[in-house]
């Protein structure tokens, strides 16, 4: 926090220093651009979505305040909120329409949206057509003019740093971790109870709102606006700034905005001189530079700085935190999972053919079978990743088939993945805390404002407890991507346990593990069983399965071959034939 205070103190200090007015003027623009780019960091760098429409949202903010202050005589401090409301509604509509579809539709839609808004601004009489609006009032507060030079610098950079602070706090919160989980596919996030679509829309709208604030400032700073500052070219330039600076870093937005703004000014003077005629030749340099940056420095300039930034372990301040709400646990022996004749057809292929089995509370059940038997498909049917063709899955008496994964999690069933799905650049502790998402309540706003401390402490306490429960508590401050395979799998189990499940579904937890790691896994599974957790295990490793399971379900070619205790299965000639073939 002291670092933030220093940063905020720096702003009036710079304004008081005898910095030439020219540089204050440049810094004002850089601050405005950086604000817009910061939205892109959240959108592109953090959530993995791309938008060329930021400039259009800057335009909405700018034109709203310009028109209202000029024609209705409203105070700019009021029109700011009107602009934000317009931006909110339009971003919500664009987001709701496009974010359901795969990644590249959002950039396409925002290109079209940026273009049509540009032509709309340029053709409406009320907005002054391509000449724009002139004579917009300067910002003032209690008669004191804030709108130009140093006072404006202080205002802009205060807003910029405040947004950065909110953003940093948000990304380190329950909602922020949900947003960060969007980048690597939505399956894991959904399985942890996160409504990924909602968070995608949230990120898009937040980025738009930041742009709108920048537009409001811009209109009152320039005191004249025209469509060219809000066209597609500018939208592309914003993305360019963010990419060059480092789209994954909040400070990258400021570095990128500064660099491109200064380069832009310099090249606009230099290049026409070199070439001999006037024209916007700087786009050639920018275009080439963009391609080069993506090739050779895909994480942007700030990544060079970030490499040398010391990384401090998270301070453990949650020792005395309370507990998160727990679910009502089933009695030992109670019927937990009832799989009733589930069937999955892919076209003419019956991948899963009327499979039925049951799991009672306290049991470890293994689902085994040769390659291609349909185990993983069965697993995906139970967890709601794939829709059923027919049949039903009941969990604790309630039908869960047809529900999305995130609802299934909330009913008390948590899973891991065959290929570990995590956020590699977050710490182990933060990754595991995602598992507790469904048990928390704090949202985006309290994340930004930092009013979520109590729940954060509880989440981290829970995460640490679960890590210790599976025996890798010592790794909690490590970066998740650096863990060995065995530890990553245990981390996934800890993450699933954070959801406080009655039934744990493990998809090939022993795949890729060494002997020692398998032993550790078997111990963890038995210990969990002792603590009342039931487990469904899809597994290839026979030693592990035979050692820990109470009951085995054997599948072959999509059908149920046999159900029984490990001993019965081992002795069964049918199972042997399925695995090893028959003698003729």
């Amino acid at each position, binding site marked *: 926090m002291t670092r933030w205070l220093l940063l905020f103190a720096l702003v009036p200090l710079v304004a008081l220093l005898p910095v030439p007015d020219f540089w204050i003027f440049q810094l004002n623009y850089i601050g405005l651009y950086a604000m817009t780019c910061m939205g892109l960091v959240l959108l592109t760098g953090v959530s*993995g979505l*791309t938008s*060329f429409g930021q400039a259009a949202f800057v335009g909405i903010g700018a034109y709203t305040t310009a028109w209202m202050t000029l024609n209705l005589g409203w105070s700019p401090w009021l029109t700011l909120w009107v602009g934000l409301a317009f931006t909110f509604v339009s971003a919500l*509509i*664009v987001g709701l*329409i*496009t974010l*359901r*579809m*795969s*990644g*590249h*539709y959002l*950039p*396409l*839609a925002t*290109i*079209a*949206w940026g*273009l*049509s808004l540009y*032509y*709309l601004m340029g*053709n409406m009489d009320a907005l002054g057509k391509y000449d724009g609006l002139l004579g917009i009032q300067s910002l003032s507060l209690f008669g004191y003019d804030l709108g130009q030079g140093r006072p404006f610098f202080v205002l802009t950079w205060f807003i910029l740093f405040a947004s950065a602070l909110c953003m940093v706090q948000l990304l380190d919160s329950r909602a922020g971790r949900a947003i960060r989980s969007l980048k690597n*596919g*939505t*399956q894991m996030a959904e399985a942890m109870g996160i409504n990924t679509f909602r968070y995608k829309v949230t990120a898009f709208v937040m980025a738009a709102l930041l742009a709108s604030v920048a537009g409001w400032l811009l209109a009152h700073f320039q005191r004249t606006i025209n469509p060219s500052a809000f066209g597609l070219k500018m939208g*592309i330039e914003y*993305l*360019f700034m963010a*990419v060059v600076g480092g789209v994954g870093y909040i400070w990258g937005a400021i570095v990128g905005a500064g660099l491109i703004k200064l380069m832009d000014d310099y090249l606009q003077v230099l290049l026409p001189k070199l*070439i001999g*005629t006037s*024209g*916007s*030749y*700087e*786009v*050639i*340099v*920018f*275009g*080439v*530079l*963009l*391609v080069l940056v*993506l*090739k050779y420095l*895909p994480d942007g300039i700030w990544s060079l700085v970030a490499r040398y930034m010391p990384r401090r372990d998270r301070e453990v301040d949650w020792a005395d935190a309370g507990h998160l709400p727990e679910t009502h646990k089933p009695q030992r022996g109670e019927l937990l999972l009832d799989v009733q004749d589930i069937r999955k057809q892919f076209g003419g292929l019956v991948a899963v053919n009327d499979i039925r089995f049951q799991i009672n509370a306290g049991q470890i059940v293994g689902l085994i079978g040769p390659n291609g038997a349909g185990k993983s498909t069965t697993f995906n049917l139970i967890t709601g990743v794939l829709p059923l063709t027919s049949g039903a899955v009941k969990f604790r008496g309630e039908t869960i088939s047809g529900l999305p994964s995130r609802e299934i999690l909330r009913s008390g069933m948590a899973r891991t993945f065959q290929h570990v799905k995590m956020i590699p650049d977050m710490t182990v502790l933060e990754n595991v805390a995602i598992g507790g998402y469904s048990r928390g309540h704090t949202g985006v706003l309290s994340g930004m404002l930092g009013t979520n401390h109590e729940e954060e402490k509880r989440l981290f306490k829970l995460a640490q407890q679960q890590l210790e429960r599976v025996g890798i508590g010592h790794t909690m401050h490590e970066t998740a991507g650096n863990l060995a395979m065995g530890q990553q799998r245990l981390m996934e189990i800890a993450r699933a346990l954070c959801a406080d499940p009655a039934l744990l579904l493990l998809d090939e937890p022993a795949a890729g593990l060494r002997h020692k790691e398998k032993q550790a896994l078997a111990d963890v599974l038995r210990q969990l069983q002792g603590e009342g957790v039931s487990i469904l295990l899809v597994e290839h490793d026979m030693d592990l399965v035979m050692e820990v399971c109470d009951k085995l379900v054997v599948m072959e070619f999509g059908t149920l071959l046999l159900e029984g205790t490990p001993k019965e299965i081992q002795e069964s000639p049918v199972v042997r034939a399925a695995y090893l073939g028959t003698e003729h």
Partner: protein
Amino acid sequence: MDFSIASILMLDGATNGAIYALLGLATVLVFTVTRVIFIPQGEFVAYGALTMAMLQAGQVPGTVWLLMLLAVLAALMECWSRWHHDRNLMHGIKSGLVMATPPLLIALLTLWAVPQNFSMPVQALLSIAVVATFGPLVYRIAYQSLESATPLVLLIVSVGVHFAMTGLGLLFFGAEGFRNPSFLSESWSVGPLNITGQVVIIFTTALLLIAALWVFFERTLFGKALRATAVNRTGARLMGISTHAAGQFTFLLAAGIGAVSGLLIGPTTTVFYDSGFLIGLKGFVAAVVAGLSSYPGALIGALFVGVVESFGSFWASAFKEVIVFTLILPVLLWRSLTSGHSDEEH
């Protein structure tokens, strides 16, 4: 509005739509084979029209110099990556020469042809050859080493390429606009309609090209190989299909289609160095209508875009671009409602 105005607008829209269809097809083609969302498609349109205009005026088109420049650059890159691969300088020089020779030959041929004042069809062919050759060079220089990047990164690269190509267009052609003479000066009256020779040429060329593309992708082994690359890159490589070659060839086709579109549109409107962008984007809207995957879909989408545009310019001419580009939102909504979600691990 009466029937005669409506039919004139329909014809006008369908004519533009035919050109958008070509560009939409090129966009779909590039996306399915390389996963590149090729925003600079429109630049080839402008390059094609302006190259033709320069040839008509008896001047050396700026594209020729640009072509030589890019050829040398691509050759150096090819030479370097080859040498980097097996440390054999001869291999490097050889593959560099293979890369640079065709564009350099075409450039020299054009330089020779300029003062000869050939007839229009010859100049048209020459323009197409010059601009089409840009395709593989652009792919080699900007995209090839990023082949395995995500579609999103490739899209941002496309934006960079678009910037660079627009700026270079300004540098080599200047800010002046050109309107090319029509290939056929005859015109016929059918009822209220006045069908010009250019309209006939546009429809014929578009239909022929679309048919040729269909035959190529459905009936030839190479076309099928390209489609295989589109479905599964690794699998295609294992079957001996070079993804580099597939990418470069696709870009050759796309640039060639762009150049043809430029020649077709040249006589109907004044083309500036940056005109291509909007024209290309309308082809793009058409491709999006088709979900970036279906050729017949892109054709229907393009005709739709063309007709909407012509009716839009009749009713509210200032807002025709607004209408065309806002159209993409309901289209996307419709697609998102019908296609369900397809967003896992692309």
